[in-house]
């Protein structure tokens, strides 16, 4: 496995996980204010080995192992950020972010609004199911924070976006929640540019242009949508896949432009259905694109249960390409 301390050769493919590692490494080299905090990120290199070799390269203080206390170390990161450092906090699993909910939503999110003190920090949160993690290691908790003004939220789906968005998040003057999908860590690869680049926060990306139906999605579900699109193209249904990449601030213009073109929309996410991000986008489409809609706005999401452990139940729980295919066929009939 390529680690951050072993240079990737130009032209060599890197995984989504390695792309995250590279972004951290390059930003730490570029800017000495950047440092990492979290559980087991030091000698162990993190639960997913994202920071393997980092402590040797950057020292104990810039790759700081913390006590098992998410609220405490997120609060500490806020304090350090206010003093001009650029902390990047690792949640071991996104599920554990609930322990730091108060510090994120009450302190970090409101700080600049209340009294003008910027909090430039990043919280990396490995999220999502499909890895047999059960109720406490599979969650998609982004919806909780979607409703908290003052936070930015990103969720990349490719190695290119993973690297570029993490760099942009680290350089951003605000608290940014970076949701990285565990299922994608070692399953997708890409050749990345040799030169420094960022993916600007706030810009969605059309991952597949199409004419008939828009699928708005993010994270691992992007790949599901692409798989469904391949299948549907054989039936003459042409899907356009909009990868949000950034959840806050939402790139409404790209969503609206796509739906104005196709007149049909499917909103797909792995998070639970009720009160999810799809619900908000459905409302936005109803408000801004009502005139151009030729069919109902459809949502595909996980059911309103915790993420179950046992394989048949988890498979049932997670949205599938066949769900997208079925929804697209239904919409195509309008």
């Amino acid at each position, binding site marked *: 496995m390529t680690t951050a301390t072993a240079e990737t050769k130009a032209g060599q493919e890197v995984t989504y996980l390695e792309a995250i590692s590279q972004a951290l490494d390059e930003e730490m080299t570029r800017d000495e204010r950047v440092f990492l905090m979290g559980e087991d990120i030091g000698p162990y290199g993190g639960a997913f080995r994202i920071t393997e070799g980092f402590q040797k390269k950057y020292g104990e203080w810039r790759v700081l192992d913390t*006590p098992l206390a998410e*609220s405490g170390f997120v*609060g500490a990161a806020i*304090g350090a950020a*206010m003093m001009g450092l650029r902390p990047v906090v690792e949640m071991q699993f996104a599920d554990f972010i609930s322990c730091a909910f*108060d510090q994120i939503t009450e302190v970090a999110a409101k700080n600049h609004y209340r*009294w003008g003190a910027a909090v430039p920090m990043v919280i990396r949160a490995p999220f999502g199911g499909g890895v047999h993690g059960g109720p406490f290691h599979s969650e998609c908790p982004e919806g909780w924070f979607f409703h908290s003004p003052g936070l930015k939220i990103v969720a990349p789906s490719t190695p290119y976006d993973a690297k570029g968005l993490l760099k942009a998040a680290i350089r951003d*003057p*605000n608290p940014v929640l970076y949701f990285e999908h565990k299922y994608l860590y070692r399953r997708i690869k890409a050749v990345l540019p040799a030169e420094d680049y960022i993916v600007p926060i706030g810009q969605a990306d059309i991952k597949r242009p199409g004419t008939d139906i828009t699928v708005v999605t993010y994270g691992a579900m992007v790949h599901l949508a692409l798989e469904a699109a391949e299948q549907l193209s054989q039936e003459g249904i042409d899907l356009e896949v909009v990868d949000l990449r950034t959840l806050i601030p939402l790139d409404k213009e790209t969503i609206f432009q796509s739906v104005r073109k196709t007149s049909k929309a499917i909103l797909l996410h792995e998070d639970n259905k009720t009160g999810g991000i799809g619900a908000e986008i459905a409302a936005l489409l109803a408000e801004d694109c009502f005139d151009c809609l030729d069919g109902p706005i459809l949502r595909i999401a996980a059911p309103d249960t915790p993420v179950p452990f046992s394989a048949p139940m988890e498979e049932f729980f997670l949205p599938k390409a066949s769900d997208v295919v079925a929804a697209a066929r239904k919409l195509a009939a309008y």
Partner: protein
Amino acid sequence: MVTADDAYMDDVKREIKRDDLLRMYYYLRLTRTLEDRITALYRQGRIMGGVYTSNGMEAIAVGYASALERDDIVAPYHRDVGAFLVRGITPGEVVAQYLGKRTGPTKGKDGNVHIGDLKRGVIAFVSHLADNLPLATGIALSFKMRGESRVVVTNTGDGGTSRGDFHEALNFASVRKLPVVFFCNNNQYAYSTPLKHQMAIKDVVERAKAYAIPGEIVDGNDLAAVHLAAQKAIRRARAGAGPTFIECKTMRMHGHSEHDSAKYVPRELLEEWAKKDPILKAERLLTSLGWADDAEFAKVGERVQKEVEAAVKFGEDSPLPEGREALEGVFATDEEANS
């Protein structure tokens, strides 16, 4: 024979200069007069929202904040108006903040005691008690990482020490020997909840033992005692020896907020503590040291009265923000984050 009193007087004479003690006395009086005036405005219906005073507890914030250097940081809680004043937040800004005026430190975005200004080294208080303690550890961590000899002092109440954030902060600070001093204003009531229903231990300072943090109990109504303890702990932190915990025993003389008549507090308890008022104590000390007399105290009284009246005028004459300013400032700019 050297008595405890003699030792205390020796410490005061050795560690505190006359002018510094007089300045602290001035801040005690300024805090009391300002908060009494704000309470009066509240009773007249001229202030909306809550009024949380440090009445009878002013010596704590004044005592610790006066022990800090200019580049140090305070992360206070809601009974620390004295710390704002010592750090250079003006009485006029405090009144403007209470009135929701644009001239308040938060420009009307937040109210009453939620005052913060990084330029003056004040972290704004978050109502979720003890939330500022983890922040203080991160501030201290940044000092340590950059090799700066700066210190942060933070404070919370007895109730705040029940929160997980209190414990997470003390633990982290001790593990990494961070330059932070934790104060606790033990005023015996968290809103209406007495200590005995807050914790099973007798002294809050016992909590520090669990984290191998040296702890001390001081008389929170004794300005010099608080200041001496703060000095010692701050020196220790600055020298790289890590955090200290200081429990200040005191009594909340008003309700939790001024709307609260605090009938749940026995009157005898308040009468007993009224005799230990921090201003009276400071005056007795200054007199016995021969550093000031009643005429001097009266002069300070007149001075703070004038300053508070000017502050009220400043606050009331200041403009309110426009409604649509509510939409500004959700996100910071690059310039702000890099300044």
